[in-house]
């Protein structure tokens, strides 16, 4: 359990964590699920869900006491996406890559110890991987997270890795192993691949990129869900085009001054 001594900053952070715990899915969750997903105490979670309910960000799922995302969050995300010139600029590249390789393509930024999809396009046949814009993925166990970690400045990188180890608890060694093998791959080939990092039977191949005058680090990934994927073969197939797309996006965003 996290500490419950709170400043307004911590309160707002916790509240938004509860909202994020829905992972942009329509799935109904109860307070107990949210306690498990956020690590916050039950008392805190129930006050936060009550607030979210009263402000129109959550609602009761039809015929149930569990909660579901309501309409409140939709217009915030929409306002951001329609006003962000960067999002408009990189979207065509994602679409091209998705169609060309027939995979789902995501562009993500790091936030806390998680990765957030700020761009997403699905290939024609990849509808089985149910993710999309706004999806939140763990940084420690996904290819897109590892590529991002590889891309950030050294000081930030070591801080993040330390925090990830702490978060993983008993699984710290396993997270470390996976991360080191991704880093080895990134060092030699510029890309990394993780199998089943998120959902079994799926894989992700990712590479970091740096965008705009403010040198913002992001990660670009290709993913697919398939039965017993041959990671090595897919990696070889996807890596060259993935890297070419990453360079093309960097090029297109060179003169962007704004932050994303």
């Amino acid at each position: 359990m996290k500490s419950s001594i709170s400043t307004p900053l911590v309160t707002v952070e916790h509240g938004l964590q509860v909202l994020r715990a829905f992972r942009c899915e329509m799935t109904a969750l109860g307070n107990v699920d949210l306690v498990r997903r956020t690590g916050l105490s039950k008392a805190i979670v129930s006050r936060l869900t009550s607030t979210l309910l009263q402000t129109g960000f959550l609602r009761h799922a039809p015929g149930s006491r569990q909660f579901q995302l309501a309409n409140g969050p939709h217009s915030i995300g929409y306002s951001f996406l329609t006003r962000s010139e960067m999002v408009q600029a990189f979207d065509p590249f994602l679409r091209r890559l998705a169609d060309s390789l027939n995979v789902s393509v995501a562009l993500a930024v790091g936030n806390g110890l998680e990765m957030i999809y700020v761009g997403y396009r699905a290939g024609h046949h990849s509808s089985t991987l149910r993710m999309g814009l706004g999806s939140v993925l763990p940084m420690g166990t996904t290819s897109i997270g590892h590529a991002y970690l590889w891309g950030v400045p050294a000081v930030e990188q070591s801080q993040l890795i330390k925090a990830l180890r702490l978060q993983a608890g008993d699984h710290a060694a396993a997270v470390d192993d996976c991360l080191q093998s991704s880093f080895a791959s990134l060092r030699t080939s510029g890309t990394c691949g993780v199998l089943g990092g998120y959902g079994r039977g799926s894989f992700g191949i990712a590479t970091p990129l740096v965008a705009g005058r403010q040198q913002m680090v992001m990660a670009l990934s290709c993913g697919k869900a398939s039965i017993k994927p041959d990671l090595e073969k897919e990696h070889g197939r996807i890596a060259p085009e993935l890297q070419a797309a990453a360079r093309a996006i960097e090029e297109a965003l060179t003169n962007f001054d704004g932050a994303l």
Partner: protein
Amino acid sequence: MDSELTCVIDAPQSNSPSVGLGGGDSATGDKVCLVRATGRPIVAPFARALALLASFTSKDLWCSGRELAARTGLPPSTAIRISDTLVQLGYLHYSPVTRGYRLAAPVVALGYGAIANSNAQRVARAQMGQLAEQQRVHVHLSSRDRLETVILESCSSSKTASSHLKLDVGTRLGLASSPLGWALLAALPEVERYYLLEHLERRAPRDWQLLRRRTGEGLSQVQRLGFCYSLGGWRAGLAMIALPVVVDGYAPHVLSCVGSAAQMPRARVELELGPRLVAMADKIRYESALA
């Protein structure tokens, strides 16, 4: 459910910084955690942060602290303090040059995708685009948020002359004041409908007679025709048709189409556009159940 309909921002303001959630008893201090008459706690700093994020529109880039204060009804010092908190957490950017705030990328993680990626909406989006193009009208999908309908999806024909009539995503209309709301009310169980109408009456006692009569007409149109419409009555020169779409597992949605009154005479509305929308709602219901 009662408190869901009350406005959060009218929570008492304190000049000293709020201390957020205490570790222990929440009901002891009003600055700590406001407990409403209904007995449901609301965490004030969090509710204010949500209101502040929601006050940005798709037309804003940079927004000053003063502007945000005006929109949320918060005192400027409070609005700025909360904005700075959101900057620290990465949800807003601050520009010293414009001295303004804007939404940052992590806001998309707060739930945007749940609706945008939902089957029902994906299916609806494709069909709405087709209808807008064929009929040269604006087609919208909306849903309820407290006492209003909110536009979730908006499709327009590239050839339409009436682009000023388009309703943008995020646009809110009172439940009793337009066909969107009437269609939504028509889809609800009776108890819930009367419950909402009661609250609407408390909000707008002055115009209530007129709104109540129009709402009643709208509800009976939906029962008779499957859709309801307003030809210039809701807004001069504008015609609107709306009908409910009920997909299993989702709260009711409303499908609607808007055009100029000249372009949408009664005969076209009743014999062509209305029935088309009814067929489309059936198709959306059917296809989202398959997806």
